[in-house]
């Protein structure tokens, strides 16, 4: 059996002098099985994401990448990690540099990870733009020329260009209009099928998680309340909080 791509083993973290932001968190992301981290404000979603990206080191517990602990001092392995695990953020307005054209933005991981340059890089950028459904001439244009949904596609193109196995997506569709939201969700599902890309998504939106993730982890106050197969958790929540969360989602009248 292959190891999970990313795994948290009894991870706790406290900001300097503060109470623990997350405590005793354990879950694993296996290839081909999207995971949704669900929780409200203060649940510890952002802290977990920082730990998963190696931007913070756990106070206790371990973050495992391909079965071995992540060590920020091991530069060769961190480069391997960055190549395998890429990120998409919530706000496609602040996450793209307005002064760089889209081609340069999308090529950034190729440059910084030393994967490709010149014509080689341009070809890979063109391929990435095509797979997120953007026109070929997008590369020579600038972020402000694109709508919110298109910008999120640009951010996704930048994330997939180095050929990662896992995408960490922080509320990737929350800032988008509902019609655009569905299209970007479809794109993420399609990338899973065509490229074998697994998604670990942080979201407050249960329906987005339900649509995209095979597994879900419910967080509250820095702890895991419940985790399991998404259908099982939604169909038969074991915890009161999970039930309240599900019941609170507004739905169309029948």
């Amino acid at each position, binding site marked *: 059996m292959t190891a999970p791509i990313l795994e948290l083993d009894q991870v706790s973290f406290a900001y300097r002098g503060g109470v623990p932001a997350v405590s005793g968190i354990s879950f694993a992301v296996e290839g081909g099985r999207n995971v949704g981290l669900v929780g*409200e*404000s203060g649940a510890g979603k952002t802290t977990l994401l920082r730990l998963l990206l190696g931007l913070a080191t756990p106070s206790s517990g371990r973050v495992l990448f391909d079965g071995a602990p992540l060590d920020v001092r091991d530069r060769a392995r961190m480069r391997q990690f960055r190549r395998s695990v890429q990120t998409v953020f919530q706000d496609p307005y602040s996450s793209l540099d307005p002064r760089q054209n889209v081609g340069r933005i999308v090529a950034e991981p190729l440059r910084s990870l030393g994967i490709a340059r010149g014509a080689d890089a341009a070809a890979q950028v063109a391929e990435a733009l095509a797979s997120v459904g953007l026109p070929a001439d997008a590369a020579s244009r600038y972020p402000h020329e694109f709508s*919110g949904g298109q910008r999120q596609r640009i951010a996704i193109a930048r994330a997939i260009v180095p050929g990662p196995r896992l995408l960490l997506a922080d509320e990737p569709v929350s800032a988008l*209009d*509902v*019609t655009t*939201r*569905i299209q970007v969700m479809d794109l993420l599902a399609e990338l899973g099928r065509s490229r074998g890309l697994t998604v670990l998504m942080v979201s*407050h*939106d*249960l*329906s*987005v998680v*339900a*649509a995209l993730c095979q597994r879900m982890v419910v967080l509250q106050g820095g702890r895991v309340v419940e985790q399991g197969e998404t*259908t099982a958790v*939604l*169909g038969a929540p074991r915890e009161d909080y999970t039930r*309240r*969360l*599900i*019941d*609170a*989602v*507004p*739905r*169309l*009248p029948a």
Partner: protein
Amino acid sequence: MSLLDVTDLSVAAGGVDRVRGLSFSLSADERLGLIGESGSGKSLTALAITGLLPEGLTVRGSVRLDGTEVVGAPERALVPLRGHVASVVFQEPLTSLDPLMRLGSQLAEPLRRHQGLRGAPLRAAVLDALREVSLPEPERIAKAYPHEISGGQRQRVAIAMALACRPKLLIADEPTTALDVTVQAEILDLLDRLVAGRGMALLFISHDLAVVARETSRVLVLRNGEAVEAGPLADLLAAPRHLYTAELVASAAALDAALEVS
């Protein structure tokens, strides 16, 4: 006579119409949901109704609020309408709360101005207003500053302030979009209860069809500043006439369906 009559309303910025030829009306105890995505002109419509549009925007057409024409009216003619006739609850409660003032003092201001209350009766009215929006420990909240309470509690205070002068029309512009989902459910229930209890009219603005459905049964769909479809929500869900409405309904239904586990 309607409480609110909007006729052929247009709002232009830099020569471009952001709202174009919008007409609808609302009678005293009626509710209407204004649905639209970003750039649809829904918030501009709310601001135009209360005469709060920023400078540089030009308004054409007519907005009659409780018999008074708002378009082109001087500021002094609008002041008596705000709070008494129409009040707005915005998406971000910090928009309407002063960060440097205790919440009790902020809430006391409209009560003093409009109801002439002073001293002990004023203090009692402030606590009553906080209780009415189901805030626990009203004494503590009254002494607190906005940053000392949660987002959901801030929105409750903003609602209390909007209701302080007993308006006939409440305009709620994405009042729960910035809130957690469990808090959103509570605030939607609160608004529903208060509007029904006081017999107010409600103009509920949102991008979220499922949220609008919690508060109103009649809706108007806006896109790029124009009304594309209006009518009972049930009809619109069952048989949308406009392509855009159909897309909106399909998107909301897809998100709903994802949650249905057989």
